[in-house]
């Protein structure tokens, strides 16, 4: 295989890998802090994506005026739709705001997702700390169905396309940057953005846990919850905040994923199944493992969808992630970077 083809597949795997890594990171955060297996995490990813949809709908909310100078095909004055933002901020600025709806949705999604996260933890998850893991799986699974159906009731069952800002439409000829012929390695701009965004979020989460006092307390709580509690620290409150942060990470992953894959109500479930495989492959409870496994499996998936590979082993693109999970779990029972004693009771 040529080097350029190899690089292209690595790049193709990065954006899906970023999404897997972000969701798996949130799952692992929740599991590591609260010890809860959250099957509703995919739904949080989906709600994030629908935050972008909602913001776009709000921004393009329009009023209708009659343009007397033009007529429609019936000879009546033409109805012109003007979004309110264009009215308020002027046409140029207004259109720019609408164009940048997806990046703006980040600002919109953070408070929304934090709130949803807090509400979920305080309202439901809190009561399940002491229950068996099977119960946690089941109740969050039920919650995921409920969230999914609520979204379906409001937005319908179809995919809703949300475009990326115009500046990022089109592709980057990545090959020319590193000395290949033009047109060999082409990569859409938005996927570059997504990858960089994911890296920033991941770095921010790690930095938050590693370099702040709050993060230090949380890490101490992950290691030994009881002792931290005995020191007079309200660890539950901090864990609730971590749940909110994990929800926000999943939500942001969803917001930025909308231009790559138009959101629909069951996208969360589709990603959830794979994300759990990612978490388990990475090692339950290991943040680094989750990120690593996310990227590895994303890239593996993209290699398996190459034509040459499919001709060699038909159907491999459909099953490669599960196959990898089975092999890794049997060879390394605790996953890639898993620690001893997690989920082994």
């Amino acid at each position: 295989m040529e080097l350029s083809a190899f690089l292209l597949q690595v790049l193709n795997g990065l954006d899906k890998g970023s999404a897997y890594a972000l969701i798996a990171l949130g799952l692992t955060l929740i599991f590591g802090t609260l010890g809860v297996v959250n099957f509703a995490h995919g739904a949080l990813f989906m709600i994030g994506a629908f935050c972008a949809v909602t913001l776009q709908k709000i921004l393009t909310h329009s009023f209708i005026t009659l343009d007397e100078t033009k007529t429609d095909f019936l000879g009546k004055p033409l109805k012109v739709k003007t979004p309110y933002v264009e009215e308020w901020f002027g046409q140029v600025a207004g259109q720019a705001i609408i164009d940048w709806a997806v990046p703006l949705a980040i600002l919109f999604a953070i408070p929304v997702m934090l709130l949803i996260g807090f509400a979920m933890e305080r309202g439901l998850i809190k009561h399940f700390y002491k229950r068996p893991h099977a119960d946690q799986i089941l109740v969050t699974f039920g919650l995921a169905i409920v969230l999914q159906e609520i979204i379906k009731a409001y937005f319908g069952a179809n995919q809703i396309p949300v475009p990326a800002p115009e500046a990022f439409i089109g592709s980057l000829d990545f090959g020319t940057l590193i000395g290949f012929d033009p047109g060999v390695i082409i990569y859409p701009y938005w996927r570059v953005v997504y990858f960089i965004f994911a890296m920033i979020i991941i770095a921010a989460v790690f930095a938050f846990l590693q370099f702040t006092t709050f993060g230090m307390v949380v890490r101490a709580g992950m290691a030994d919850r009881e002792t931290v509690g005995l020191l007079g620290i309200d660890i539950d409150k901090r864990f609730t905040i971590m749940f909110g942060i994990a929800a926000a990470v999943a939500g942001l992953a969803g917001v930025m994923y909308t231009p790559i894959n138009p959101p629909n109500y069951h996208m969360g479930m589709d990603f959830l199944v794979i994300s759990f495989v990612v978490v388990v492959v990475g090692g339950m409870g290991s943040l680094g493992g989750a990120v690593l496994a996310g990227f590895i499996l994303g890239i593996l998936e993209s290699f398996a969808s190459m034509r040459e590979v499919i001709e060699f082993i038909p159907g491999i693109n459909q099953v490669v992630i599960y196959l990898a999970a089975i092999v890794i779990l049997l060879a390394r029972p605790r996953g890639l970077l898993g620690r001893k004693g997690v989920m082994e009771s």
Partner: protein
Amino acid sequence: MLGLSRNDFLLLLFVLVLVAAAPIFLNPFPEGSEFAQFNAGYPDLMQRFVIFGIFAIGFNILFGLTGYLSFGHAAFLGAGSYAGVWMLKLLTINVIPAIVVSTIVAGIFSVIIGYISLRRSGIYFSILTLAFAQMSFALAASVLTPITGGETGLQTALHDPRILDGASDGAGNIPAPSLFGLEMKQSWQVNVGDWLWTFNVGYYLSAFVLLIAFYIAIRIFRSPFGMMLKAVKSNNQRLSYTGISPRPYTLAAFVISGMYAGLAGGLMVAMDPLAGAERMQWTASGEVVLMTILGGVGTLVGPVLGAGLIKYFENIFSKINDNLLHQWFAFMPDGIEDFMVTIIHPFVGKGWHLTLGLMFMLVVVFLPGGLVGGLSGLYRRVFQRRSKAQ
């Protein structure tokens, strides 16, 4: 009797009466009345009740007794379905070989998957079974199309060999699945007053199989083997310390429950000779988990009730539409009527999944023992209060 204690025999008798009289008491509303659409006593739905009941009984043998939560049991149901359709295509349109072979094929499948998956426990086991099921689903839908019919599914056709009884029936049509000439879709309708009762051959065959499956499940629950499985659930480690390896027991439970799933798959194609890949998808595996939880994990009769309840809601709730709601609330003032309809609207019709999700959450939160656990708790409370009063 039958090697059962008195209580268990009464339970079996209860289930026998339940399934035998189902066509009658599932049709409580007279034909043509406003509520006739809540009647569940039509063959198609009743068949689904008992078939999913068998599936859930089998799942409960694994999950209820050993505590191993499998998220991939639909794969066995799917494998059984495919094997069943192939028997109907190749051998004979008689359903007996189809049902037997589906069970065996699912059993072989579950030996392989169980042997590998059971090397891990807890969530790792769940993920491994999920991975296997998703792989089977993806392969069945794409690469294995020559065997599985891909996305269109596998069904009987006119040019199938059917070595024992020929490709077509006398009139040149595709023969319908039958039991020694008695067609599965054949039913007798009885009119009693305004009520219409339908007695269907396929339903009674499935119900008969359900009774056998239920009887075997009782015997397993009460056997030393069942005790071993319960020991695995309550304390796996202590069991190992006594020098007993839990692996053979869990594997046996896994294979038995896989065969139950295959049996359900075989019955499904016996009723309707069609198998599709979506039967293997993880949502289908999730469904059987829901049924078992809703009815009551580890109870004998719970899974059957759970299966019936979910299938009933799926069929009946999804039928309710706005017109019907308006009819029901027509006695109220217009404003309140519209208000009630708006409130109920999201929960019925296409939104019945929302009801399902909510119901499921409520059961897990407030009734960890499922419906059966809740009812027996209630019974015990009432009973104890009465004995105290004495």
